[in-house]
């Protein structure tokens, strides 16, 4: 995974709560078997509306999404993170993230920064009053800067460390393969196996 230390880019105010992953990427796009090339799918239903924020310059070149509370609810589809990244987003700011979306972001190097709603409101105003204002997200100091607004953000320490170091999760876990094997030896025999297959 690519390291994430700090990122600066145009902020995109998305004044909406409960942006579920069906809105971020509708199910019809989930039939693809690749992990890239989802930029066209991002918010595809909303992008049909000319007044949608990503259809306006300079927001269409944005890379920091500033959203309302409960971002990424619903389906576990990691495609939502892939679509945001493929479009060019590197960070999403919200006062509350759905757990699975937050986890998926951490695996893919998209920074899900939890910012207090009061600060989100200030950032929204800044971005709306001066479209094109850049937002800086600094992972080392856990601060976000937008114009005159400087706000702290929260992210769990483990994800932060992995992002800063660009570490691969599977590689980290496989360092403990002996522990996994030892655990497997202790599993009760009544626990089911899928093989050989039994059917009714």
């Amino acid at each position: 995974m690519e390291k994430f230390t700090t990122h600066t880019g145009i902020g995109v105010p998305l004044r909406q709560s409960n942006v579920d992953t069906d809105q971020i990427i509708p199910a019809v796009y989930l039939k693809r078997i690749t992990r890239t090339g989802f930029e066209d799918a991002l918010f595809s239903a909303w992008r049909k509306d000319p007044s949608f924020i990503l259809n306006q310059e300079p927001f269409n070149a944005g890379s920091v999404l500033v959203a309302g509370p409960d971002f990424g609810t619903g389906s576990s589809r990691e495609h939502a993170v892939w679509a945001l990244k493929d479009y060019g987003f590197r960070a999403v700011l919200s006062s509350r993230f759905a757990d699975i979306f937050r986890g998926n972001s951490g695996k893919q190097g998209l920074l899900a920064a939890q910012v207090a709603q009061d600060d989100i409101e200030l950032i929204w105003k800044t971005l709306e009053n001066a479209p094109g204002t850049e937002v800086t997200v600094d992972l080392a100091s856990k601060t976000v800067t937008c114009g005159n607004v400087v706000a702290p953000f929260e992210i769990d320490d483990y994800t932060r460390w992995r992002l800063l170091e660009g570490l691969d999760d599977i590689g980290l876990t496989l360092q403990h393969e002996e522990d996994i094997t030892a655990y497997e030896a202790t599993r009760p025999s009544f626990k089911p196996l899928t093989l050989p297959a039994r059917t009714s």
Partner: protein
Amino acid sequence: MAKTLAEKVWDAHVVRKGDGEGANAQPDLLYIDLHLVHEVTSPQAFEGLRLAGRKLRRPDLTIATEDHNTPTLDIDKPIADLTSRTQIQTLRNNCEEFGVRLHSLGDAEQGIVHVVGPQLGLTQPGMTVVCGDSHTSTHGAFGALAMGIGTSEVEHVMATQTLSLKPFKTMAINVEGTLRPGVTAKDIILAVIAKIGTGGGQGYVLEYRGSAIRALSMDARMTICNMSIEAGARAGMVAPDETTYAYMNGRPHAPQGAEWDAAVDYWNTLRTDDDAVFDVEVDLDANTLEPFVTWGTNPGQGVSLSAKVPSPEDFGDENAKAAAERALQYMGLAAGTPMKDIRVDTVFLGSCTNSRIEDLRAAADIVRGREKDPMVRMLVVPGSARVRLEAEAEGLDKVFKDFGAEWRFAGCSMCLGMNPDQLEPGERCASTSNRNFEGRQGKGGRTHLVSPVVAAATAVRGTLSSPSDLDPAPESAALTTDAA
């Protein structure tokens, strides 16, 4: 130390406690007992294994089924949609290459992954269960810790049979009392979500407790746990009891003989200790609960069926107000309209929330001997091929067909419209599924989440209806006597 059910299951699966504290504190490494796989969230994970030259660690703890993309008509013909066909063929190729058991379209065990696991007896109390699907929470009905994960985590489980997880907080949902006739598990969970909100469960494992939960069947408990994710929770659980064991006993992969006895001894320990403390407790009164229905575009936007469409002004919070305004516009509803005046075009009975045999029986009991509103189309999509066979053995297919409903093959179907079962723009649907998001059931489609009996009553009257709104069916008395 006193523990909750969730903490007991967690502790029994810790392969390695997370090192350190503070900045570099690591999560616990947890062993995964069962990994369920389907065609949509797995291709990129299999590809990741291949690219890294890694093996699938435990094919014998992994099982796959085709569900999201599968058609519910003409299943003996090649899938018409080429991208769907490619995705399903990719799953078949991957399962062949990595040695994964797969139940394909046409197989008697094919169906929605969350219906298939329990019916095969692969979901058992005290297990950790994961799947690249948020409704994995369903399996918590057995007292398993069951979580939806993303594709990167799917690959992680494939490679290591573990997940790195940070401990959750615990929330008790206490539901005491007795449900009135026509009020079901679906109404309980819709009321819970309306109460705590779509973000209310974030960071929590919910445990559903109380006399109303204990009185529920396994199918009903699965309905409740299924929608835990709609409250934002990572998982939902019900402690196992005699109802659980009666459901499990004799299933293909349930333990047998001495193994069964050992398992039951262990399962009996899987309950929250009397002096354990939950981080949060929420109470719901089952006695006063009414059938519940959603009016908006997230599952928390629900009211009693006898209520009216709320006004944005009813919400104090600015974000909730704006969300309500937007939702009413999308749904084409005016504030103050009685919910029961809302006319629907389609009724969908199906999805991992409500497609099990009891759901079909409950709906069939309502429509038997009645006539469908001629303007309404009704789709009945059993959760699995096995449920479909069981229903046909009971003659339920005939009941639905006589009523005028379409009797389909198993799959996720119109819950998310990845196959041809979709709403048209502007079309309104009473759906037993789990999500009323914009466009979820088809671009521009409008969804009202309801229970199977409300769905059935709605198909009779054409407007959102409770079973108690129906005139007595001409033949229902005789049939009830026969059944008794």
